[in-house]
C-alpha cells in the first residue's frame, strides 16, 4: 500500500474541492431540504463516479462526453434547482407553522 500516494491524492482533491461548486451546492441544497442525508449521498456518489471514471477510463472519458456539453447540462440543472428553491411553496407553509 502506497500511503504517500494515497495521502497525496487525498490532499490534492481535498484542497481543490474545498469551497468548490460541488461543496457550495451541497451547502445550498442541504439547508432547506427535508433529506440532507440524500443531498450528501447524491453529492458523494456523483463525485466518486466522476473520479472513478477519471482514474480508470482516463482520457477516454473526455471523448465519451464532451466537457462543454456536460457543463451546459449542469448549468441548466443548477438554474432549475435555484428557481425551484426560490419559489418553494412548502417553505412558506413551514414558516407559518
Amino acid at each position, binding site marked *: 500500500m*502506497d500511503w504517500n*500516494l*494515497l*495521502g*497525496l*491524492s*487525498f*490532499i*490534492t*482533491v481535498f484542497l*481543490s*474541492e474545498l469551497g*468548490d*461548486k*460541488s461543496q*457550495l*451546492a*451541497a*451547502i*445550498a*441544497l442541504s*439547508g*432547506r431540504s427535508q*433529506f*440532507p442525508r440524500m*443531498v*450528501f449521498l*447524491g*453529492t*458523494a*456518489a*456523483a*463525485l*466518486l463516479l*466522476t*473520479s*472513478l471514471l*477519471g*482514474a480508470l477510463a*482516463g482520457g477516454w472519458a*473526455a471523448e465519451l462526453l464532451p*466537457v462543454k456539453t456536460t*457543463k451546459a*447540462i*449542469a*448549468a*441548466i*440543472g*443548477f*438554474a432549475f*434547482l*435555484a*428557481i*425551484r*428553491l*426560490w419559489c418553494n*411553496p412548502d*417553505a*412558506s407553509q*413551514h414558516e407559518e407553522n
Partner: protein
Amino acid sequence: MKTDLPTQLLEAELKSEHIAIAFENTDTITESQQPSAFGQSSRTVFATTFVTIFFAEFGDKTQLSTLLMSAESQSPWIVFGGAAIAMVTTSLLGVLLGCWIATRIAPRTVEKLASVSLLLISMMLLWDVVQ
C-alpha cells in the same frame, strides 16, 4: 353512548375530532416520503443532486487531477481511494455546514441565499462553457 347529549355539542365534538385526525394525517404524510407540490421525495432529492453534480464535475479539475495522478503513478486504485475519501469528506462538511446555517437563519432567507448561490454556480458553469 353519547345519545343523551345535546346534538349540537355532539356534532361539535365530532368535528374537532375529525380536524385533529386530519392534522395527524397530514403530519405523517409530510414526514414520510410522500411528494409535496414539487415532488420532493428522498429519491428525487438524491437523483437531482447526483445528476447535476455529476455533470458539473465531469471534466472538471478534480477529475483531471485524478486522471493525471493515476496515469503517472500507475496505481489508479490508490489514487481513487485518496480522492474518494477527500470527496466524501468535503461533501459531508458541505451538508453539515448547510444544516448548521439553516438552524441559525430564517428558512425564507436560507432559501433565497441558497437559490442565489445555485444561480451563481450555474453562471460559473456557463462561463466555463463560453470560454
